[in-house]
């Protein structure tokens, strides 16, 4: 593959949320170290399709280009992944690039993923500090506790876990693995657990944690290797206990 002089990509495009999608193919000069983002940048520099038709630069979300901002999630050869870390050398050609299918398309590869941020509000994914004035140091934590919290806190909100989840769809309204894993993170924190009950109740009912079908796709596609299924299992247990408590309180 590295010997190829050119790279073939095909991009599923869509002018706006209402219009129909269509495919365009591009043949680009290969350079070693090229990733999907640099291929899209090359198209912007010379927006001409493989057949010589003039077209427009492709709209896509990106920012940090080092897989930490979570912007450039898309389907690449059918797999949910980040475009910045998708090296052309490792991809079969033509490289098929598509927007996520479970989020509304804005334009081309851009989709609206604001649902995750709404879900984070719903589960109160924060530590309720009293204020920003000087109140001394935070709670002591053992290195073991830090080592458990840190991986969960590395979620980049890319929504790969939701795109890959068979249960994440309009019918279920499932909240998705990312938000559930944040519940685990904040319920573990010495101050954050003050809101534990509220978080768990937010995961009951429509679209709650019970929608999970244990397909385990989330943990497979997570670019940050977050132990999402462990989070779901643990939070699922917490929700059960909470539901039980609530039942007897009524």
């Amino acid at each position, binding site marked *: 593959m590295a010997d190829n002089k050119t790279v073939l990509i095909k991009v599923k495009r869509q002018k706006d949320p209402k219009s129909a999608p269509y495919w365009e193919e591009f043949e680009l000069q290969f350079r070693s170290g090229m990733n999907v983002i640099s291929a899209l940048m090359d198209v912007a520099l010379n927006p001409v399709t493989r057949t010589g038709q003039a077209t427009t630069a492709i709209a896509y979300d990106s920012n940090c280009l080092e897989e930490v901002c979570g912007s450039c999630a898309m389907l690449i050869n059918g797999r949910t992944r980040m475009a910045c870390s998708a090296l052309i050398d490792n991809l079969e050609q033509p490289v098929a690039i598509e927007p996520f299918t479970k989020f509304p398309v804005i334009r081309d590869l851009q989709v609206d993923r604001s649902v995750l941020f709404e879900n984070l509000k719903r589960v109160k994914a924060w530590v309720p500090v009293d204020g920003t004035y000087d109140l001394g140091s935070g709670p002591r934590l053992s290195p073991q506790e*830090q080592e458990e919290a840190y991986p969960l806190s590395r979620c980049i909100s890319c929504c790969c876990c939701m795109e890959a989840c068979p249960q994440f769809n309009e019918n279920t309204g499932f909240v998705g693995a990312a938000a559930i894993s944040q519940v685990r993170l904040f319920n573990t924190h010495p101050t954050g657990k003050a809101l534990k009950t509220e978080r768990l109740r937010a995961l009951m009912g429509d679209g709650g944690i019970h929608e999970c079908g244990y397909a385990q796709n989330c943990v497979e596609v997570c670019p940050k290797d977050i132990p999402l299924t462990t989070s779901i299992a643990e939070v699922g247990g917490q929700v059960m206990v909470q539901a039980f408590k609530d039942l007897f309180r009524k």
Partner: protein
Amino acid sequence: MAINPKIVVVGGGLAGLAAVIKVAEMGGQVDLFSIVPVKRSHSVCAQGGINAAKNLKGEGDSTWQHFDDTVYGGDFLANQPPVKGMCDAAPGIIDLLDRMGVPFNRTAEGLLDFRRFGGTLFNRTAFAGATTGQQLLYALDEQVRRYESEGKVRKFEHWEFLSAVLDGNQVCRGICAMDLRTMEVRTFPADAVIIATGGNGMIFGKSTNSVVCTGSAQSALYQQGAFYANGEFIQVHPTAIPGEDKLRLMSESARGEGGRVWVPKQPGDKRDPQSIPANERWYFLEEWYPKYGNLVPRDVATRAIFKVVYEHNLGIDGQPMVYLDLTHIDRKVLDRKLEGILEIYEKFVGDDPRDVPMKIFPGMHYTMGGLWVDFNQQTNIKGLYAAGECEYQYHGANRLGANSLVSCIYGGFMSGPNAVKYARSQQTSTDDVSSSVFEAEQRRQEEFNDLLINNPGNENPFQIWRELGAVMTKNCTVIRYNKNLQETDGKLVELLQRFRNVNLSDKSMWANTSFVFTRQLYNMLQLSRVIAQGAYLRNESRGAHYKPDFPDRDDQNFLKTTKAYFAPDADEPRFEFEPVDTSLIPPRPRRYDAAT
């Protein structure tokens, strides 16, 4: 007088979010604007840590020592009182972040762990693995989301700042912004505005910065009359991974944890690096700077690497690269303290840095210069504040590693309350300002949009940008010559001319990303002239600004802040110089090579 003033914050990185939290806490109403969802801001890229002299390692560290290291590292160009304020506040900021749940690494006793960074001899850097910026941003993002759910903050994500709305007295009364999806241009009145729009790495084509770091907002404000200070001070990070689309940062913390920089002594040595014996390796930083070793400040390390590569011709395999070696460090330690950055190297290069020395080279990383602000973070435009990398105040001629996160948060914490106080002290509220002021600004921006979208030229904006990046990287980074700087400005004038003939292949008015980029490009070009001309005027070497023809620091003539302002008629920058406040630490020679 507004009891609950409306404050617009532009930018949702650390500085912007810090400002939002303070304003909301004081009862202000915030409209927060960001190009990307704030959780995706460039602050996520900060890796190594955040400085605060907590002195938890029994080393006798103090906030004064932090202050001295920062001023000395910045080659005495920073006004000292605000720097002292920042260093004094830093331990409290760490405590607050700790309370907000940032998963900082811990000692066995459960206290915060600290590591060493460049330009200091103390273990002063708190860290959360090697993704500290991400963790801090998330903590502030979560607090802002909490305020958002309480109705105290409104977020305008996927909106681009276009300009400030200034009344007839040049007082800032709000902003003009564009929805990046509908392309609608709108004005937003505010009692005060805080700009926290980060760096300008995109001017250099490839840098360690994120795509949104164009400096476009700062440039727009400079063109509206704001001073831009010390623009010529650009930090080139010694250790970045060269890439096709960007230069990826390899954190200074790699050296803080014991990483060593070296090249084979024999030019063009083709052996596997692991098979090269110790006596055939040149650890040039350790040899040249025995006291600080691999942890000299970034400008010093970068120039050393340039010297080794270009003067000694000892780049790896003749290429412009040197080794950054972690292979002698225990894998478990590496995983616990540096995993985030090792993962980046593994994913983007394909080698495991636990087994193989990394190949790195300096890359444009940070701007010390930015919007001029006073000690209250206010620009010379009343009602317009700035915080974070977009302003110039804390780092002088060179920023020390792990000082950016603390300056962002401190700047945000200063600007928020000061903006609220300012708004509360105003006799005339923004509500009383004539709507014609807002309409005029909106019209001005819409006319520019119309002009751009219908322009009949033949220039591709992305091509102009590539040429901009190439000339700026070549002549305005590590080594600067006046002849080249003059040529650069000539090239910038040419690019601005060609911009007039720019042609957009995409003329649609829905989520038109190349149109948005082209708007930013214009502002990048204007700001580039401030950088190039500022560098030309400063005939000395200080911090990151190095001229071989003027190799020494010249306090007599240049212990001064460069202040650029825009001359609209001439369509170019003018300059004046302001004395630096060195009232606390008298300037002394900056010599990291000295043995004591």
